[in-house]
């Protein structure tokens, strides 16, 4: 393994960096590659095959990164583009796929909030009730209801970090 990384590390790093245009990210990819190589090295010990295999895996990883980046930026555009400029139809299509995939996770995330936060988040965010009404329903004060909503929203965003991350590196 060490032998491979000494022997091929430099050229793989340059190869991936050229594809990604980013030396830092290329280092990530190549580091990952050694972990993968450790688990799934090819049977054969012939040096030429090892090198070809490493290149193949590295290239695939780099392409994955590029396509994740595209999806990520489409996503960000879809969610921020309509603030100033108009929304982007292509990005909206990507977004709809995400919504479908993420919807179940978000629902799960809400289901797993602590009960007070869950009630408050639901009544404010989903039902759009005002804090007075929410407080009356929950038997608390508007301030406490508001605090529950904000704690719940923060927790939800954090708990679902992998949902956002699955769309690509930030």
């Amino acid at each position, binding site marked *: 393994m060490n032998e491979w990384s000494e022997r091929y590390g430099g050229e793989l790093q340059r190869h991936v960096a050229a594809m990604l245009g980013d030396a830092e990210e290329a280092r990530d990819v190549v580091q990952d590659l050694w972990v993968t190589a450790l688990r799934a090295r090819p049977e054969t010990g012939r040096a030429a095959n090892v090198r070809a295999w490493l290149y193949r895996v590295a290239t695939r990883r780099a392409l994955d990164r590029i396509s994740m980046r595209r999806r990520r930026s489409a996503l*960000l555009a879809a969610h921020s583009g309509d603030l100033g400029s108009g929304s982007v139809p292509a990005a909206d299509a990507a977004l709809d796929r995400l919504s479908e995939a993420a919807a179940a996770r978000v629902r799960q995330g809400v*289901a797993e909030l602590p009960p007070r936060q869950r009630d408050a988040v639901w009544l404010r965010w*989903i039902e759009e009730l005002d804090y007075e009404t929410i407080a009356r329903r929950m038997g608390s004060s508007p301030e406490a209801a508001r605090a529950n909503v904000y704690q719940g929203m923060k927790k939800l965003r954090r708990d679902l970090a992998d949902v956002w991350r699955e769309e690509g590196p930030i």
Partner: protein
Amino acid sequence: MTGRRTNWGEEDLIAWILGDLDAGAAQALTEDLAACPDLRERAAEYRLLNRSAKGLREGPVIRWRRFDSPFGAMRVAASPTGLVALSWQDESDDAFVAGLERRYPSTPVVGDADRLAPAEEQLTEYFGRRRPRFDLLVDLTTLGDFQRAVLDAASGLDFGEAVTYTEIARRIGRPKASRAVGNALGRNPIPIIVPCHRVIRTDGTLGGYTGGLRYKRTLLDIEGRTDLLGSHAQTEIPLA
């Protein structure tokens, strides 16, 4: 006009999503979002989150409600399709909610004051001897086929009617399964509404009732079946 804010925090982004910002602040944040990619990226996760609100609103959710009854604190819960639980046995709201969470692990269980008001109203009328029939839908979809068949059969029993466990077994086409029928009724998640108390033993005694036979006696008393109560020492629950 004060200087421009640039230190928007997470709370501001949440407030923005929820519509809690006043108009001036919302305008300023919107402008900063357009100008600042970093802020935009931080806001993106909340926008993604907010994007799921509509789906959440339209999808499955379990609502529940507590009210006072002659049996003590009573709690009811419903899916969008119908009632899924009725209980007066739980020690606390938390215990009741925890039971629902176990039964619906991926569906939010949310407290509610309005949606289940008809259930409270009708149950209160029933206890007051002013309502012989419930006009409420039930949702038995999480239950097994056998239990659902048993509860469906029990649901067909009218106010004041009483049949035997054996008769229910016969009606669902499992004439030898009267003991299993008893077990299925004992685990009825929506008692009273699904009237398992109207099922008794072949010898005319009442059989069992989850949580205590005095509840079954009280329900049969409400329905005018004092003939079934005999001179049993166990008293009914006072309704007034």
